[in-house]
């Protein structure tokens, strides 16, 4: 334990001394300052309901950050949004309520979109082509379609009443406890109010998560890994310089323990550095959005896991070549290759490449043996979404990640990959003369 603390202290000093970590902290400071400059304003329920009903359409969230509109009404309905009145006879205890009187301009047009909505064609799946020859929907079906559509925009309670037999004139009341999970129409301000961004297809919570995700991508992505590996990739080659290793190996500590403690010290240092960066960003974001997220701080764990998975590659290459930058670049190449393999595999699945084809088999084998860096980052983002959104909000958020790997496979195969390289490094290091 004492030896571990000594090596951890050494890794910490090394990190503080390296310019690359300084660059990372500087970039993190810029990100934190950017987060501090944001200003969020929750959507106005009445405005939102009016906007939703006027833009009754089928949209998809399939694929990250994709909000493509598939079917849209040709003729906009007439919407009179207003504050609830006593004669509306709404149940008590509803939060953030908005009501609207809706006049559908073209029932046939409306029915075409309503038929393709989730619930009929299924969430996230491509909608069926409009069938003009289908029977008109009943008033009940139209009300259900509107209720489903509004729930998909973030409304938790939706009440619809038909004012005529055909269901062309409707009363709609909607409410939500979580205004931050209500999709548009709202604005957020950048750079302390210098810029204003109108949003109508995302919720404030999703934008906050997107900012957090961007920070996580910065650290767990190519840039973060480049910086971290440049800072720590040379640890072993430096230790193995003539005259340096003698001072270490002459101590009463075995070579395997020395390597394991060096590895653990570097990983723990990365965990602390990234936790500090995430923590600072979380605090600044919470000051602006009013919500502090421990889950965002916990994103340090997947980032550190990604580093812990590829760092043994740098260690092995470092022991073989004794060249720090080469070791760091080899680990970075491994990280990039794992990402490419995962992307290709997803594309193969999306493209419907049949099982048993040679390329798919090769890709599957590669996917199983490479670290699941991308998948681990995605799992971290999903955990972030789960902790910050309501159940319904998370279900909507989750549709952006249809092909997320399960945690056991992602973490298990990554741990095996790291263990293999660490074991090989120890084996080589123990047998070598210095």
């Amino acid at each position, binding site marked *: 334990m*004492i*030896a571990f603390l*000594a090596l951890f202290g050494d890794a910490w000093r090394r990190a503080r001394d390296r310019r690359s970590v300084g660059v990372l902290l500087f970039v993190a400071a810029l990100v934190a300052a950017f987060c501090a400059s944001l200003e969020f304003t929750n959507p106005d329920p009445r405005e939102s309901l009016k906007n939703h009903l006027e833009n009754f359409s089928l949209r998809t969230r399939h694929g990250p950050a994709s909000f493509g509109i598939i079917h849209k009404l040709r003729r906009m309905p007439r919407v009179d949004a207003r504050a609830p009145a006593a004669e509306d006879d709404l149940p008590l205890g509803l939060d953030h309520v908005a009501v609207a009187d809706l006049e559908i301009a073209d029932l046939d047009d409306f029915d075409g979109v309503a038929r393709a909505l989730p619930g009929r064609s299924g969430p996230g799946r491509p909608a069926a082509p409009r069938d003009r020859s289908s029977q008109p929907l009943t008033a009940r079906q139209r009300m259900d379609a509107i209720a489903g559509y509004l729930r998909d925009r973030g409304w938790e309670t939706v009440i619809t009443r038909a004012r005529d037999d055909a269901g062309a004139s409707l009363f709609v009341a909607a409410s939500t406890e979580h205004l931050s999970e209500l999709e548009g129409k709202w604005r957020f301000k950048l750079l302390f109010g210098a810029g204003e961004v109108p949003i109508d297809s995302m919720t404030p919570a999703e934008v906050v998560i997107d900012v957090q995700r961007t920070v996580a991508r910065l650290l767990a992505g190519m840039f973060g890994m480049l910086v971290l590996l440049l800072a720590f990739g040379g640890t072993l080659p430096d230790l193995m310089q*003539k*005259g340096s290793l*003698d*001072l*270490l190996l*002459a101590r009463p500590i075995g070579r395997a323990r020395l390597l394991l403690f060096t590895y653990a010290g570097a990983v723990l240092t990365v965990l602390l550095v990234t936790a500090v960066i995430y923590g600072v960003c979380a605090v600044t974001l919470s000051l602006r959005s009013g919500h502090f997220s421990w889950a965002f701080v916990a994103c340090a764990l997947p980032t550190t896991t990604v580093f812990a998975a590829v760092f043994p590659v740098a260690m092995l290459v470092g022991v073989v070549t004794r060249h720090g930058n080469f070791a760091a670049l080899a680990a970075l190449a491994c990280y990039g290759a794992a990402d490419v393999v995962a992307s290709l595999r997803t594309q193969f699945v999306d493209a419907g490449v049949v099982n048993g084809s040679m390329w798919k088999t090769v890709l599957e084998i590669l996917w199983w043996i490479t670290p699941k860096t991308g998948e681990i980052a995605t799992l971290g983002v999903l955990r972030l979404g789960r902790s910050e959104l309501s159940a319904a909000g998370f279900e909507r958020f989750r549709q952006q990640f249809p092909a997320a790997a399960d945690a056991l496979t992602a973490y298990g195969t990554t741990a095996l990959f790291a263990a293999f390289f660490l074991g090989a490094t120890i084996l080589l290091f123990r047998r070598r*003369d210095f």
Partner: protein
Amino acid sequence: MEPATDAAGAASAITVADVHKTFRGDVHALRGVTLEVAPGEIFGLLGRNGAGKTTLVKILLDLVRPTRGATRLLGVTSRAPRARREVGYLPEDHRFPDYHTAESALRFYGGLSGLRGAPLRARARELLGRFGLAHARRRKIRGFSKGMKQRLGLAQVFLAEPRLLFLDEPTDGVDPVGRAQIRGQLEELKRRGHTIFLNSHLLSEVEQLCDRVGILDQGTLVRCGTIAELTSAGARFAVAAADPIPADVVAELGARVASVQATAEGIEVVLDDEAGIDAVVDLLRARGVRLRELTRRRHSLEQVFLSSLRDAPPEGPAP
């Protein structure tokens, strides 16, 4: 501390038994080296560059694995990390991580040796003071001179209060004042019963400090013994007289001893048996020679060293 009754109960502080080391490419660094160093002894290992001195030390510290043979430190096999618990090592051309300060480096190496907390901090400061680095304890090592690095290297050797020290060129790069200080430290350690294994090119240093010396040549231990044993020139004596010794007296003496040679101060005689020196003195006094000095002749360690090498320079005098 009394090394003679050490916990391990080892008769020898260092044991090297028939150690061979062959590196890749068929380079024979060591060829059957066997030696023992007693507790409390200062042992000097001499040899040319590439003779195998550093390889032997590295094998003792498990930095290099022997091809054949075994080594023990304080009674424990060198392969076990615990063998190095009470060992200090100053490598030749040592290199500290330059992001450390003098104090943090000592705390780092002390931590690896199992020290911690306040005792470690106190020990680090005491050593920095002892080796004249107290003023630089918070300075990064990258700004140190060669001499300062060497002194820091020595300071780290003493961190865990070792009973056995391996010093590879300890005074390399240190100015004369610093050298004298280091020699003083080593003499103090010797008085306290520590065992020291010294690799040095400075023969005068070895001659002053070491109880025993080994000479390694091309991987073979060619000579090993006390300084007196190695430098002894047999029964060779120099006799200085107040006046020149008459030639007939020298000739008479020549008939009784192995050889006699006139010198500027008197004569130099070589006897078959050193007990014969009394008869030589008696004869000279009987012939009226006024004696001023009688000295036993010795070789210098340098002469011994050079003559021990297989391909010694031709001008190297034979012992």
